[in-house]
């Protein structure tokens, strides 16, 4: 993320995860991403429809001194 914001003139970052994937959702929230939406039943996975959660982080919300938690590069 530091690289993305430092090397590129981007406005922000977007991320998506399957709602049941608590690991990914937890990482995004720890990184300071904001939950922007939940697409209902948007993907079929492991035999059932699952929601897809959308997260976003704008440049001014990015904290380049943040101590990234757990194995995120």
């Amino acid at each position, binding site marked *: 993320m530091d690289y993305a914001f430092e090397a590129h003139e981007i406005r922000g970052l977007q991320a998506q995860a399957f709602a049941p994937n608590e690991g990914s959702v937890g990482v995004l929230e720890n990184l300071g991403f*904001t939950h*922007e*939406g939940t*697409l209902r039943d948007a993907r079929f996975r492991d035999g059932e*429809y699952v929601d897809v959660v959308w997260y*976003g982080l704008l440049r001014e919300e990015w904290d380049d001194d943040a101590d990234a938690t757990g194995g995120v590069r």
Partner: protein
Amino acid sequence: MPGPILEVSDGDDDLVLRTVEREDAALLQRLFADPYGRLGLHEQSHKNEAEVEEFVEEQVEDDSNAGYLACVDDEGAPYDHPDEDETEPVAFVYASHVDRDRPRLVLWVPPEHRGDGHAVPALELALDGLFRTYAAHTVGAEALEGDDYAREAFEAVGFTDEGRGREVRFVDGEYRDAVQYGLLREEYDVGTRAGGE
């Protein structure tokens, strides 16, 4: 001009859905001149007519996508190939990834037809066709903040506002939010708009 009729409205709006033909590239080129319209197709800039012909041949004609032109037919317009003075295209509806979990709808109405009341019946006809033709469980759509007629049309046919990507698209001079819409099959009654089954 558009080709054969795919869906016919039960209402009194004389609207039909017709196929998109290669010669409709000239009409669709106007979509790519509309900064909001083209963003729905993930295009940032305008296209010349040859590029739009390529879009028709490579995207609209791809089996994983479906394009429709909603038209107001003159009385006596033929089922198959109407002449230019026999039908008037009033909306373009495009569904991408119809073979996957969640097809995505794009709506574009030529500026001179906005406010004519065709956007909602055009979307309904396209949804009838989609849900009848493909096994999709849900349909999605994205509409940018500022693209009011599209947002109103998606909400009027029953799409749910599922969230908003903040400032994710740069269009018309600034970053704008993109509203995400979703509609589940079970929330949409195919063909019941005008007292069907």
